[in-house]
């Protein structure tokens, strides 16, 4: 990873708009859940109950025509989430070609 991309990451963090959130969820993109971060405890509990715990692999299988919600495949079933809800998932891209841009979270922020 070059210094240049690191600067880009910082910029993305500060101007993290909905569009950039949606942008990483392209059909076929694969991720692994690293942790769940957020203040909405009902939502977090719901997601872990449905199996989205650390280490779970996700694949974007569909995006609604208006760009949101997003359908994921995980643990052999399909689940749709709004981009704002998917945002509590700290994801690591499994598609190495676009890793640096897609996952702006720096490694030290990962809780587990």
């Amino acid at each position, binding site marked *: 990873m070059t210094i240049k991309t690191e600067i880009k990451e910082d910029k993305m963090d500060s101007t993290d708009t909905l569009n950039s959130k949606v942008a990483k969820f392209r059909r076929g993109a694969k991720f692994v859940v690293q942790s769940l971060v957020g203040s909405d405890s*009902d939502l*977090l509990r719901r997601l*872990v109950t449905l199996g989205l715990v650390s280490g779970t692999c996700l694949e974007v299988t569909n995006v609604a*025509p208006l760009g949101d*919600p997003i359908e994921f495949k995980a643990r052999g*079933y*399909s*689940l749709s989430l*709004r981009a704002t*809800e998917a945002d509590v998932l700290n994801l690591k891209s499994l598609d190495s070609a676009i890793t640096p841009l897609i996952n702006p979270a720096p490694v030290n922020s990962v809780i587990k």
Partner: protein
Amino acid sequence: MTESEQLNTDAAPLRSRSLLVALAGVPNAGKTTLFNALTGLNYKVANYPGVTVERKTGKAKIPGIKDVLITDLPGTYSLNGGAPEETIAAQYLSGLINETPPDLVVCVVDACNLERNLFLASQLIDSGYPVIVALSMLDEAVKRGIVIRKEILSRELGVPVVDIAARQKAGVDGLAKALLNKARPAEKRFTWSDQPSYIEFARQVGQTHVQSHKVPIHPNVDLALIGMGLIVGAWKANDEATQTKISETRAKLSDQGIDFNNFEAEKRYLWIEGVLARSVSIEDPKRKNITETIDKLATHRIFGLVFFAAIMFFMFESVFSWASAPMDFIDQNFSAVRNWIIETFDESALRSLVADGIVAGAGSVLIFIPQIAILFFLISMLEETGYLARAAFLMDRVMRKVGLQGRSFIPMLNSFACAVPGIMSTRTIPSFADRMVTIMVAPLMSCSARLPVYALLIAAFVPAIKVWGVFSLQGIVFFSMYLLGVIGAAIAALIFKATLFKGLPSHFVMEMPPYRMPQFKNVFRSVIERVLIFLKDAGTVIMACSIVLWFLASFPKVEAKTQAEAVRGSYAGQLGTFIEPVIRPLGYDWKIGVSLIASFAAREVFVSSIALVNNLEEADETSESLISAIREAKDSRTGERSYNLVTALSLMVFYVFACQCMSTLAVVWKETGSIRWPVVMFVYMTLMAYGAAFITYQIGNRLL
């Protein structure tokens, strides 16, 4: 462990009473199909106390076992609650509500979706109930190349695993055999936890809670489950003892390096992965999934939306137009009965009560059945096939902009036909806040009962001219009323979201079930259930209201030369005269006042009522005599015309917003389980109507 001894001694006296079996399972696991196969038509639908979550209980027809009561719990993903349905199921199974807990739990598990389904199953096994895992959709799993070794799965879980294939009813005997053999609680429980102290801590929290609340907990239920729910915050304790215990426990767990929020879910899923790795194999994993193929089209950005629009159009057309034939049939028959009574018997208060109170009231209840039956047939079909979730998926982005969510679309759309079935269909919305907001704004959609009111007033007062040579002014006014309702609903929804329902969870975390062929048995049952619930709950309220309205319109009897004078002398007429000063700024006189009160029975009654006060007997919204009568109506004091275009606009705007419908209020009362919500609805809609009509009349009078 002393609990297991307790369980065994507890199981003995079961023979003396009937066996209570609970069917649990995640939504779409095939629970309803199994319930139908087990009970036939021998079951009852009721609500759980205080909430509108359905409880179905039936006697099972199982050869060789007598007195098996089956209760079909609402679908739930876990014992940690969530949507109202899930919370009730979880509270019932955790022993947190005062209900007889089951002797045995059958956990229906979708064989195509084992990993997520086993989460609930493993929680149930841990709770200490005797559990039978019933595998559904096994035929579909076979087609998908999923091979399940039942013996290994059963050994791993520690409970019997049976194949039910409920769709063919063949596997029900296997389940019956397992029931006969009286499943015992699993011997090894909590095997997923590598931290025995976690379970012990959780159990202590559960004990503290149960002691300080004196909750009657069934001896079968392991308190560790309740404790875990309290530790992760799924259940809220409002007593100090438990709260202190929870924070102490959380601190202790954190000290041991246990992430108490996620520990249970992470370890359970890890354990389930292990169990499945040993008991399930997937042959031919590359096989194309039919659901993905259909979804490529069904949620395609062009084809998907066109298909969606077509389905919605079909649905709306059925409820709006096709329901009108049976509705007319009901209407005509009730009119015929009414006329027969009036012709056959001498005039008396009793005749009037029977003809205009009871018969008319029964008619106004039954008239809703065609729309309810058709709408629920279609919704149930969409739900069974799996398309309902896709419809919500497509519409969520749009509906969210106006404070609603994807699942609100179908109830809102169908409220253009009638808010009664529309509101009843909000049960498919899992989030309490979203469902409530949808219910509160659904009656703002211009329903078919407003049509005659708009039609009459437009025909009488809006000039039939063309605007820009193409658009008819009458058509524009008509369309504007629909648009006004939609805009009003969006504003009201945003306000409700920001006030009464602020901060309540409204997530759109939704499972997308695979596409499946609908089970017509389930569809028809759902239609019959909905109709019966409507008749029993809302029907009785509507009936009572129409008798009250009949009384107001018929008493006291006054000597009068004309119909209009008789009406004016009645309580309804007096009320109309009484509110005249209030409605004067809207441009209305007592005649409109009394018609507003009368049309509370149903908005279209406005037309017959305004005809009556203008001394016309039989008239509908297209009658030339009625149109000219209201056009020419004169104010008896000033001799000027009572109504003009501005009055008509003001009145139409009033009808757009006002909750002039007792049936809607009755349904809201029964669907929300509280009298508070129909009161809130009536007050806010009436204020909105008054304000909008006031502005219309005052501005209109200055402009025109």
